[in-house]
């Protein structure tokens, strides 16, 4: 069956370090993969989209990689700050129109 897995346990990182979050998937061949940030009581906010033919995408302190062989995406936040604390969700192109398939998210906690 199709599955998307993100670390279910919270990730605790010291301020200033690089945080790396993982999104693994099985039985998909997504053409696109997206990352969103969700704060408590708020809706998800789009961060980055990466295509299957792109190995890496960057935006300011954020970097996303997409390895279609490993069926994995890594999301990095460099020079992390307490304000980066949130839940980060990955979402895959589900193959049918307008369809995104979502992971459950990883809660990131940046400690000062």
């Amino acid at each position, binding site marked *: 069956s199709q599955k998307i897995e993100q670390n279910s346990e919270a990730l605790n990182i010291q301020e200033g370090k690089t945080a790396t979050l993982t999104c693994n998937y099985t039985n998909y061949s997504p*053409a*696109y993969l*997206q990352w*969103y940030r969700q704060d408590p*009581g*708020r*809706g*998800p*906010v*789009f961060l980055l*989209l990466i295509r299957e033919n792109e190995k890496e995408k960057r935006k300011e302190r954020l970097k996303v990689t997409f390895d279609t062989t490993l069926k994995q995406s890594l999301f990095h936040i460099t020079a992390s700050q307490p304000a980066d604390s949130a*839940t980060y*969700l990955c*979402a895959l*192109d*589900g*193959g*049918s*129109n*307008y*369809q*995104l398939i*979502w992971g*459950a*998210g990883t809660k990131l906690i940046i400690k000062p």
Partner: protein
Amino acid sequence: DTAVSQTPKYLVTQMGNDKSIKCEQNLGHDTMYWYKQDSKKFLKIMFSYNNKELIINETVPNRFSPKSPDKAHLNLHINSLELGDSAVYFCASSHGQGNTGELFFGEGSRLTVL
């Protein structure tokens, strides 16, 4: 101005009641969605409309009925509410197909069924 706004933000009601959640987007997007986020935080798509036409209708009870009076609005009506309907419901919109582009979400409507 809020890009995607949904009301109410909180809704507490008794089992068996009927309730509606409204959503409006001022982004000029063609496609709107309703998602349900359960206690485990999974986002599951319920419905999607493109230019007022139903595109995605996932397996949800027919007690849930979306209505799109125009492409800027997508409302969700729920009949005969059940305990299991308690969740946060998110409205979202996108320009074109959401699987290939950015989704803009509302703040969510937390529904509690007692």
